[in-house]
Each structure stands twice: as structure tokens, then as C-alpha cells.
């Protein structure tokens, strides 16, 4: 199997590449991103390409001729870029990378990153949707994920290739940048005054493992991937020994502005999560991808608060040693 990892520079992409490198049935791993990998890679080939640079991206993918694509080029707003840049980068990366991979002629499977945000939240929507629930995103990130799924599904239809969409719960971990993680780590955290909706999270390592399992099994269709159990805003804030500050109605405008000034921009999907919750039925992924031992949501929350105790190694020791050919 020759695996192309789009978005290899992020924590998730790098982790997936590391997992693939350990497998004998994976002949080669290659990837690109606009930032270099975050961890040590041994036999992966990385090229630094901005996903919006169509010509370079297509040349690289065509030359590699992947048989499988792990598509992490789906950029969450406010994680590493703004909303508009996220939309552009995600669309360009999806269309260009998947299109070039198909044209290279050897592709036989694709797995794309998506999110529970495709279901949307609010009145009239299921509280714990399964994969058959209607899709109706209520945030820009949800629409990004839905567009990515639609592109990939079109590819599957036209070329008869199995395409799996992994609808991840919000991904968090002590070392992975996420707008929700930043918000929870503020000294005082806004919470809904009149509600305490449950939300689920997914540990970064589990998201990477789900991607590898889906690739190896040639999974087809949509899968919700969530950490077992749930947490709620009031509870999560107290678990981290932070101060919950209740808001309601227009008060959220003030809350998000203050959070932004404090260094934690709050995109709409994170605001939805904390005001309306975010949960899904992950039983299909458990059964078909063998994901029965995922890190529980409350442990992911605890891991988020372990951030402060993480000791960074000196720069030279942490520099990625992937063979950078770009």
C-alpha cells in the first residue's frame, strides 16, 4: 500500500504517518502540508507545499501515485488559521489532492477527516445522531466537513472507490492546538447559564488510530468516532479547577469577544459545542473499525488540563527529522 497523507504537518497527520511507518504492509508513505511535521518520522517523504499551490501539489501527488489517501487536509477554523483561509485551504486541498490521486491511476481507497459538526446542533435535530441522521451543519467548520465529504463521495461514485468519512468528535489532546482546548484552559470560562449540554471529545491518538484502521480495512461510508461517555461545560470547567462564568442570550457576544482578547478566539462550532453540546452514536465505528478501547471523553478533558505540566524538550531534539524534499 502506498499512502498519501494530506495535512501531514499537523499533529494528526504526523501521528498517522508514524503509525503507518511501523507496518510491513505499507510500502511507502508520503505527505505534504504548509508546515513541517511535528514529530520524528523515519521513512515518510514530506514535501512542504501550500495546499492552495495547485500545480506543485498535483505534480507531487501524481509522481507518488498513491494507492490510498488519508485526507487530513481539512482545516478547523481558529485552530491554525482564520475562517476564510480554512475554507479555501480545505477546498483546494481536497479537490486538488484527491483529483490528482485518482488521475495517477493506482488509487483503491480514500479516508477523509470529517466532524460531528456536519449534523449541526439545535432545535429539531437529533441529540445523539447516528450515521443515517440528516446532515445540516450550523457552522462554517460543519460546512467545510460536509463539502469534503461531498467531494469524496462524488469520487467514490465516479470511480467505484471505497471512501470512508470519519466524523470525529472535537479532537483534543495536551499537545494538539484546538480552539476548544484553548477556551477551556482560560482561567475563567464562559458556560451556558440555563443549560449544561453533554459533549464528547476524541483524543488525538485515537483519531489517528481510527484513520489507520479505516485505511487498512478499506472502510466505506460514514463513521462517527467519539470518546466514550461525555462531559458537560460546568463539569469540565470545574475538573480543570477553572471558574465557570455563566452567560445567556446576547451575553455570549461579550463572552466571545473577551475570550478572543484573552487569546482564545471562539469560532461558531466551538460556541455551538459549549451552548448546545455535541454528541453522537459511535457504535458503528466500534463494531466495524474495532475501536472499542478509545480514551473516554472525561480523560481527554483531564489531558487538556495536563497541558501546563508538559515540558518541552530543547528545539534541536524536537525538530522533525522527516526527509524534507521540498
Amino acid at each position, binding site marked *: 500500500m502506498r499512502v498519501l497523507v494530506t495535512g501531514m504537518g499537523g499533529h494528526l497527520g504526523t501521528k498517522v504517518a508514524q503509525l503507518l511507518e511501523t507496518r510491513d504492509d505499507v510500502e511507502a508513505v508520503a505527505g505534504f502540508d504548509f508546515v513541517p511535521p511535528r514529530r520524528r518520522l523515519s521513512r515518510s517523504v514530506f514535501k512542504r507545499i501550500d495546499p492552495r499551490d495547485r500545480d506543485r501539489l498535483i505534480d507531487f501527488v501524481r509522481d507518488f501515485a498513491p494507492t490510498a489517501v488519508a485526507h487530513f487536509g481539512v482545516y478547523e477554523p481558529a485552530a491554525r488559521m482564520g475562517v476564510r483561509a480554512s475554507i479555501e485551504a480545505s477546498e483546494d486541498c481536497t479537490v486538488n489532492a484527491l483529483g490528482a490521486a485518482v488521475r495517477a491511476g493506482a488509487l483503491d481507497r480514500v479516508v477523509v477527516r470529517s466532524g460531528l459538526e456536519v449534523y449541526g446542533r439545535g432545535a429539531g435535530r*437529533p*441529540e*445523539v*445522531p*447516528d450515521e*443515517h*441522521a440528516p446532515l445540516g451543519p450550523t457552522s462554517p467548520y460543519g460546512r467545510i466537513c460536509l463539502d469534503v465529504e461531498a467531494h469524496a463521495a462524488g469520487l467514490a461514485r465516479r470511480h467505484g472507490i471505497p471512501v470512508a468519512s470519519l466524523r470525529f468528535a472535537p479532537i483534543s489532546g495536551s499537545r494538539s492546538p484546538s480552539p476548544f482546548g484553548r477556551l477551556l484552559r482560560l482561567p475563567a470560562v464562559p458556560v451556558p447559564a*440555563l*443549560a*449544561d*449540554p*453533554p459533549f*464528547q471529545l476524541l483524543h488525538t491518538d485515537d483519531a489517528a488510530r481510527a484513520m489507520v484502521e479505516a485505511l487498512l480495512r478499506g472502510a466505506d461510508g460514514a463513521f462517527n468516532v*467519539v470518546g466514550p*461517555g*461525555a*462531559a*458537560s461545560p*460546568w*463539569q*469540565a*470547567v*470545574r*475538573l*480543570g479547577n477553572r471558574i465557570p462564568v455563566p452567560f445567556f442570550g446576547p451575553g455570549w457576544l461579550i463572552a466571545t469577544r473577551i475570550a478572543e482578547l484573552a487569546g482564545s478566539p471562539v469560532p461558531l462550532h466551538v460556541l455551538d459545542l459549549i451552548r448546545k*453540546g455535541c*454528541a*453522537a*452514536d459511535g*457504535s458503528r465505528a466500534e463494531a466495524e473499525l474495532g475501536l472499542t478501547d478509545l480514551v*473516554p471523553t*472525561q480523560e481527554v478533558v483531564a489531558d487538556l488540563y495536563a497541558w501546563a505540566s508538559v515540558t518541552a524538550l530543547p528545539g534541536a531534539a524536537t525538530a522533525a527529522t522527516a526527509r524534507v524534499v521540498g
Partner: protein
Amino acid sequence: MALDGIAVATPSVPNYGIDNDRLLARDSVLDALRRRWDGRYAVDEFGGDPHLQDFLLAPVVGRIPLRVEGGERLPRDGAALLVANRGPGFAEPLVLSGAVQREAGRRLRIVGLPTPPLLGVLTHKLGGVGRRAGDVAAVLRAGHLAAAPLAMTLSATGAGEAPRAVIAATLGFALLPVAVRPGGPVGLPVRPWVVSVGEPLAPPEGTEPGDPLAAAELAEQARTAIADMLRR
């Protein structure tokens, strides 16, 4: 079986039995308040808060005077859908929770409780789930014991329309018809409530999940079984 007779488990990890709804030993008031303040309690994806259910709800429903017939049919583990009659108010769901607690030592998820602001938060924490069929199916797939009401009737001994959409979405799980009626004459709750658990119902062999015809037949069987038990 009385509440005191149930062997309650001691939590080794603070997950409060989310996985099997098993009723657990209760904290003291001080410990419970400390646990709430520290955020060290479990929450499930349906908004249920087992710690709060065991601490607040269990003592209340455990004191409801009631008599259970066919209690041995209530599953001690795993998922099942109870379909029960319901009159105006909240009496039947509370009585049913009490019966399940006494007979099986488990918590019960009640389908379709109202969810206005603030009150909705509390009903979800105490085990309420939305009335959408897909959400109820997710509750059962997670291994919980759920109770869905027949359509509400004004008569305390009436059996309304069965929830067909819920039954269709949950085909394949055990379905138990349950009749809940006040023990007193002309429906007055002057004697202990009577909860009758009927024989499990199942669709014909080879029924596909979501089959609307099979669900309609099963719904009618459940309604008839409940009506028969209410007439006894």
C-alpha cells in the same frame, strides 16, 4: 424485592455505572457536594448524570408504594424497551422508575419528557431522553433500559396509541409491555400502585430493522397487551 435487598456495587472508578445503569452506593451529602464542586462525576452522551440520579431520584422513587407483577421479566443487564401506558402528569414514569429500581437495581431512561429551559436540563440529568426515534435507538445501542409511553390518555387506566416510530427504530431489541395503574378503586392512588410487566414481544423471524409493517404489528400487540393488563 425491596430496595434494601439489592446488592449495590461500589464504584471502583468514578463512572457511576454508565455502561449498565446499575444503581450504585450513594455518597454522603458532604461527599456528594464535594464531588459536584470538583466536577468528579460521570455524564453520558444523552445528558444523563448517574451520580445525580442515584443521589436525588433513587431515594424518591424508592419510597413510592407499589407492587410489581412479572418483575422477573425485567432484564438485569443489557438494553430493552419498556412500553407503558401514561396518564396526565408524571406519576407513571416515576412509578415505573421505582419498579425497575426495586426489581432490577437499575436506572431507567424515560423517553419524551418535556424539555423547557432549565427544567429540561434537570429532566435530562435525571434520565430523560428526547422523543426522537433515532435518539431512543441510540440509547438502546448504548445498553440502557428505556421506557417509551403510549399516547397519553385522560383515563388512568386507558391504553393510547403505541409509539410506532420508536418501535420501528428499535426492532431487534427486547420489547416489554408494561401496565401501570393506581391500586385504589376507580383509579385513586389510595393503595400501592400496581406495575405489571408482560411477556417480551418480538417481531416475526427475519424482520429487517426499521420494517414499518412489522413495527405497526408489534405496536398493536404492545397496546393490546397493556390494555389487557389494565383491565385485570
